[in-house]
């Protein structure tokens, strides 16, 4: 049976994608979730995974073609399960017959970790083998390519205009004291080695995630005039892109992670945003967004909701301010202004205020994180 493999939607704002590179050819047997192509969207170059198993019958889109979402890019022959087993064994023999590529073990490991197809890389080792240096070079060019020739500005303009046109935003702000959180963080980090140390922004996001579990009205999609809460929290994080613009990859299922897992996941996401290697799901399946101006120095930021999501939290610049404590004494303390922009079609200001209060409660009780 033939199946038309469509250009996938890699984000709510994506209308078309440019096929940068095929990683399969006619006759290949592909497995579910196998990376089959690199597609450039307005945001970055994304590795596209196949949703089906089958044999490639025909490649429709040529490298360089711009294809509308949903239009076929290749035709697969999909067969029943019993035949799949035999294709698997055929695959094995095929690999055996392939010419072995000379690549050093560590280079191979790094290539696999970064989803780099090394079969096309020309090695620079003494015997033409691919070394770590070659993979690092490839990674750098991949990153540069990831953001080249992309009209990110236009995409942001389209999405943000749509958001402001369609979504009735309401805005709330609450100033929160971070002294107990920062003390706890210092103490905790003393016990950890540098790679495991928790980062303050990750911890603030963690507080938002924990609070979000109690407020399903903030986490999900507004589609076709109704809201659908999401069972997972896929936390989108707004990252600035070198050369201007913003992209919002998500930490998938952030609610199922421990604080330290989440801390690592955020760092890994930031690294891959910078160097390439984001997955399509990470760009298309965010259920909630955080924008963190942090070190840019603005005291507060009111985000524009990323449709079809229904809320965005803004984390401002962390700084010292005068605080009046419970004994009415004036002292200096660390504060941050946390804002909420939410969709009034889904929730009201009262609920939004409770949500911010819940975040504050979590920040005041770091052990609850």
């Amino acid at each position, binding site marked *: 049976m033939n199946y038309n493999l469509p250009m996938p939607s890699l984000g709510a704002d994506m209308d078309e994608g440019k096929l940068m590179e095929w990683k399969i050819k006619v006759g290949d047997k592909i497995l579910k979730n196998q990376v089959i192509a690199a597609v450039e969207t307005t945001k970055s170059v994304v590795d596209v995974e196949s949703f089906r198993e089958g044999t490639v019958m025909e490649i429709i889109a040529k490298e360089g073609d711009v294809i509308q979402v949903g239009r076929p890019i290749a035709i697969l022959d999909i067969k029943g399960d019993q035949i799949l087993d035999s294709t698997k064994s055929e695959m094995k023999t095929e690999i055996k017959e392939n010419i072995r590529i000379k690549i050093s*073990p560590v280079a*191979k*490991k790094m290539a696999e970790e970064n989803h780099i197809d090394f079969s096309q890389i020309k090695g620079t080792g003494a015997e033409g083998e691919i*070394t*770590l240096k070659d993979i690092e070079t490839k990674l750098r060019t991949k990153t540069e390519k990831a953001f080249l020739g992309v009209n990110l500005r236009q995409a942001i303009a389209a999405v943000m205009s749509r958001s402001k046109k369609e979504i009735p935003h309401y805005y709330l702000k609450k100033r929160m004291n971070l002294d107990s959180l920062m003390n706890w963080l210092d103490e905790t980090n003393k016990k950890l080695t540098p790679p495991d140390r928790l980062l303050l922004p990750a911890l603030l996001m963690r507080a938002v995630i924990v609070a979000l579990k109690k407020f399903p009205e903030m986490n999900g999609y507004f589609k076709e005039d109704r809201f659908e809460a999401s069972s997972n929290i896929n936390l989108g994080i707004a990252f600035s892109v070198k050369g201007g613009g913003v992209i919002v990859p998500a930490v998938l299922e952030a609610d199922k992670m421990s604080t330290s897992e989440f801390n690592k996941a955020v760092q890994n996401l930031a690294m891959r945003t910078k160097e390439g290697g984001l997955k399509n799901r990470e760009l298309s399946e965010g259920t909630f967004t955080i924008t963190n101006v942090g070190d840019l120095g603005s005291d507060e930021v009111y985000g524009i909701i990323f449709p079809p999501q229904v809320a965005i939290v803004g984390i401002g610049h962390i700084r010292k301010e005068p605080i009046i404590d419970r004994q009415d004494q004036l002292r200096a303390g660390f504060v941050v202004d946390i804002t909420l922009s939410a969709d009034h079609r889904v929730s009201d200001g009262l609920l939004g205020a409770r949500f911010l209060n819940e975040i504050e409660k979590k920040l005041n009780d770091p052990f609850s994180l």
Partner: protein
Amino acid sequence: MRLTYREALRLGLKEVLATHKNSFLIGEDVGAYGGTYAVSKDFLAEFGSERIIDAPLSEVGFTGIGIGAAMGGMKPIVEIMTVNFALLAFDQIINSAAIVNFMSGGQISLPLVIRMTSGGGRQLAAQHSNSFEGWLAHIPGLKILTPATVEDARFMLGYAIKENSPVLLIEHALLFNQSAECRENISDFTPYKAQIKKPGKDLTLITYGGMLPRCLKASDEMEKKGREIEVIDLRSLRPLDDETIFTSLRKTHRVLIVDEGWRSGSLSAEISARIMESCFYDLDAPVQRLCRKEVPIPYARHLEEAIIPQIADIVLKLEEMFK
């Protein structure tokens, strides 16, 4: 305090004899002559003939005496002139010293130290220039220490004498006149941890004993060419400190082992195999080895130099690895 390797060995030995009243030194020419390498010069007068014992030319005999004395509760220090003559005592070392504890079901322990020199490079011809330390490191039940620095020359003996099992201290004949700063004491001294003598990020150079100064000089040469070589002094050949080797390799992804022994079945082969077993996926290039050529050592200086790894050979090998 600045000391030569020879002075450091002498000081270390003197401190041990002064501290451990049940210790004694036995070997050829250790008393009246003051030791083949003048390490025990004047000790006979200071410690007396009961504790500084000139033995007849019978390695198997006086090594056996040392083993017997250790079984009886003494702390003997047996000096065998060089590793070449230790061959005569291999039965005692391997078939007695290494296994007494095992064969007695743990009832008998053997606080025995055997000192000897090893290595070539002094035009002493084939039968006097061997490097058998890698061979000895094959034997379970022995600990093999190879002091390559002045501080190790001074402190390894003091550590070894407190061990309850046989320790072989294998000194290198070419190091005796090297000098360096030496601390008065090192509180957390342990000989079983390899040391990074020079940090670097591009390649790990593993060595020990007489090859260490050459490797350090070769790495200096490479530094001028923009390559940062990390030089590891193994210090202990048995037990081997895998952790330090693996940690370094995971940083540099490349490794060269310089071993003065012959290549086939050498210590470098063992290290290479361990790296393959544990760090294969961290390697960016095959493990390389530089060893002595597989012929008996010739007497002629230029031939001897051609056979034992020299600084220029190490540099050449390193350059090849970066091609």
